[in-house]
């Protein structure tokens, strides 16, 4: 109410995106498939599969040794560039490492890149967005202009300079990806806060004399968080991809056990002679992103109180 008309416009816009962008299907959503027709993508079956996939990946991340048939660092120079076979289900790479084992062991760092960078990004972006949305006024303007500035500076530049400034390393890659994702989260959070602030229950809470801080913590934040969290599930995949992109530009980290992005980027030169080296890590990313998105969609439906209420 105290923000400018322009701010209201943007926030409204963002809210619309948020709502629509997350595939919200209204109750009584339209579709013409009648009961007899085969229903593809039946939400629950797919989500179930996705759940299995993610559980498997988490298992890979936690106890890769149980799953991988070989050590990921074992370089069998007698068996380099071998096509998939019974011995090496996904083939071997140019060091003679078993690609399947590499992928299994690489899960941990890949997930770590995804999860940590999203966590940091959400934390910073969410906080800034909350501040801007809740405080409004000058602070809002300043913060949002700052976010604009961050958006304007190409993410790759941020990533490259952060990596250059802090030195390479998983932590800094994570930080680089996180920082370039901050403006997005901040904007969504701000829009969300602005919207939730106007909700009836916030008004109602204010009317009984609850403190603003308690309203923020107990009402506004919990109700604003869902879209941010759903956005974060999408961010998981794109962070891993961003990591792969940095790896491609030569900013990766040479770890004993490369993450999927690094595998993909390092193996790309062998696409013509040994396609399996970078294709399977690519599929691993796809599988992860796909599953997380499916679960995210479903979860969004689940946390959306409006949809919970309906038949």
């Amino acid at each position, binding site marked *: 109410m105290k923000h400018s008309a*322009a701010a209201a416009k943007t926030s409204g816009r963002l809210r619309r995106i948020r709502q629509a962008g997350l595939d919200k299907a209204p109750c009584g959503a339209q579709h013409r498939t009648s009961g007899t027709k085969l229903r593809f993508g039946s939400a629950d079956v797919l989500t179930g599969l996705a759940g299995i996939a993610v559980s498997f990946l988490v298992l890979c991340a936690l106890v890769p040794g149980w799953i991988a048939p070989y050590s990921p660092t074992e370089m069998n120079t007698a068996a380099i560039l071998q096509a998939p076979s019974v011995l090496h289900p996904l083939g071997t790479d140019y060091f003679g490492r078993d690609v399947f084992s590499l992928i299994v062991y690489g899960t941990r760092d890949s997930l770590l890149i995804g999860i940590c960078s999203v966590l940091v990004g959400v934390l910073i972006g969410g906080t800034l967005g909350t501040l801007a949305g809740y405080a409004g006024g000058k602070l809002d303007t300043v913060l949002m202009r700052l976010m604009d500035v961050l958006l304007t500076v190409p993410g790759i530049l941020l990533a490259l300079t952060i990596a250059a400034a802090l030195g390479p390393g998983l932590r800094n890659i994570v930080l680089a990806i996180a920082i370039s994702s901050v403006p997005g989260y901040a904007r969504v959070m701000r829009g969300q806060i602005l919207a939730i602030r106007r909700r009836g*229950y916030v008004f*109602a809470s204010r009317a*009984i004399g609850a403190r603003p801080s308690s309203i923020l913590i107990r009402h506004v934040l919990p*109700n604003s968080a869902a879209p941010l969290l759903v956005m974060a599930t999408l961010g998981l995949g794109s962070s891993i991809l961003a990591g792969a992109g940095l790896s491609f530009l030569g900013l990766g980290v040479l770890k004993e056990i490369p993450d999927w992005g690094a595998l993909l980027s390092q193996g790309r030169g062998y696409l013509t002679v040994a396609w399996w080296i970078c294709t399977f890590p690519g599929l691993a990313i796809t599988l992860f992103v796909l599953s997380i998105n499916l679960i995210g969609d479903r979860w969004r439906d689940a946390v959306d109180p409006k949809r*919970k*209420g309906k038949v």
Partner: protein
Amino acid sequence: MKTGLEVKELTIDVHTPRGTLTAVSEISFDIAPGETVCLVGESGSGKTIASKAIMRLTDYENGRIAGGHIRLGGQSIESLPDHLVRGLRGRRIAMIFQEPMAAFDPVFTIGSQIVETMRAHRREKKSVLQQEGVELLRRVGIPEPELRMKQYPGELSGGMLQRAMIAMALSGGPELLIADEPTTALDVTVQAQILELLDELKESLGMSILLITHDLGVAAQMADRIVVLYAGRVAEQGPAAEVLTAPRHPYTSGLLNSALTQDIRRGERLRAIEGSPPGLADMPGGCRFHPRCAYASDRCRESVPPLSDQGSGRLAACWHADEAAAGAAAASFAAAVQPEVSRPLLQAALPVAAINGKASPILLEAQNLKKHYPIGGGWGRRKRVIHAVDGVSLSIAEGETFGLVGESGSGKSTLGRLLLQLESQTEGRVLYGGEELSPQGSRRWRETRRDLQIIHQDPYGTVDPRWNIGEIIAEPLGVHTKLTAAERRGRVGELLEQVGLQSSWQDRYPHEFSGGQRQRIGIARAIAVNPRFILADEAVSALDVSVQAQIVNLLQDLQRQLGLTSLFIAHGLQVVRHISNRIGVMYLGKLVEVAPSEELFRRPAHPYTRALLSSIPGSPQAGNETFTAKGEIPSPMNPPAGCRFHTRCPIATDLCRRAEPAFVSVGSGHTAACHYPL
């Protein structure tokens, strides 16, 4: 040739994530050419879905016609191929909807949407159709139709849009017009205009009308015949007059009893139907009404009563139709005689202070309150101001219930918020117990919050969906008391029982409750810290009649028990009359009349009050030209000079256009701001 519409044993299934549910079961009714049939029933009873099925619009909404027939002029619709159905829609059957604001595509002009409808069914030059469109708009009473054709839906008022939609519906020259709650979203004065228009069009065009409504008053005014739906089944149907006066189904009589009419005396307990309508997923077996029915027997629980002939064109689905009919007659007899007998008793039950407001001390007082909302501005646009509340003075005595009525946008809610200082005024002041109420955010503000509570209009939007109801009700306790968790739980349990819910429901979430139950939760929350004053802003407007009656009863009981003072805001005049000691009428940010409740209804002094009263469907003045307000409420951005009502007033003079009338006393405790009080 024309046989009208025939619906026979229509059953509609809907696919939901929880499986296929039956929304409408074996409903049958006919509409003869030129006839108006009203489909009445509470929310969720299947009115909309049944009407959509007639046009096969259910196809798009997970719906499926699972059985029965729909015939229009002898032609079966339920099995027609898609392209033929499309030819039917808009041409032989047209439909208008509840919310005209939402029923137009916001990004196309009114004109293009009307022309588009015509072009869907015939080939004709655009300019010709354009001209026809203008004529249609003129026909439904839209001023400057050429201009309106070029405007976007967002630029027209609701009443205007509803007219435009009617025009659009007429463009195909339909045999049957389905109107799904066409006036619920509109102001009372506009509702009256629209209903009148529909009636007039039906006469002149010879259409049939299927009018869907939950308002028995509307049905009484419009219908030739009435079909009462309950939980997806027809409960009763027959000629309007008979159904309304001698119902043969307990549900119908329950509905009639719940509805507030002028026959019911103020302060009297309403005979509400207990419980709430069942959800689709948990339909009771046998007669679906039996859990709420006073006549329910084992038979009702076990087998479904068929829709049986009750003579003189009436059908009812009840095993105990005769008893019900007898009971209804007795009840209405009681209602007719009761007032004289019980009035003194009732008044004795009220706190003494509430009766003669003058004597008791004033609890809350507004002095020349103004609230101006700046809008626009910045970005190079001219700054403008909405005069939401524009100089209102009033006082509410301890123990009194003050009712506030007025059309949408007249500033009732804003005034309420100002009185509680939930917003700061532009001008004027608010006194609470003689002291100026501390503005929001100040140190003392929190203390006054305990005394002043609100019951909100939207019982769903004003509770945090993530909190269970225990937490919701306990929130004010957490803010204002130092109770332990266990004590709080205990208190919440008490409160739940006090509002007619079970104390064990604390751990449930809002979405698990029906609308009426949610409003009870809101009330429990409001009374949790023993307030002195309660603002009820449209606290019952969103509820079904049967439930509304329960809540009104509850509110009255609580007020009496707790000795509450309250401000009761509503646009439903009957409700306000029923519950309030005094009533204030607002128009465009100003209070135009204040009077004791009965006095206001008996002897309205301001032409606007008169217009409001005459727009109540079924009221003696209804449809009386001389008392209806013309046109629509002007924009609060630039309210008319002089008397604000002069643009719509049937008796306005030059004086009214020039000078703002002052409040004059027209009776004891009765004041009005009019140059020519009636």
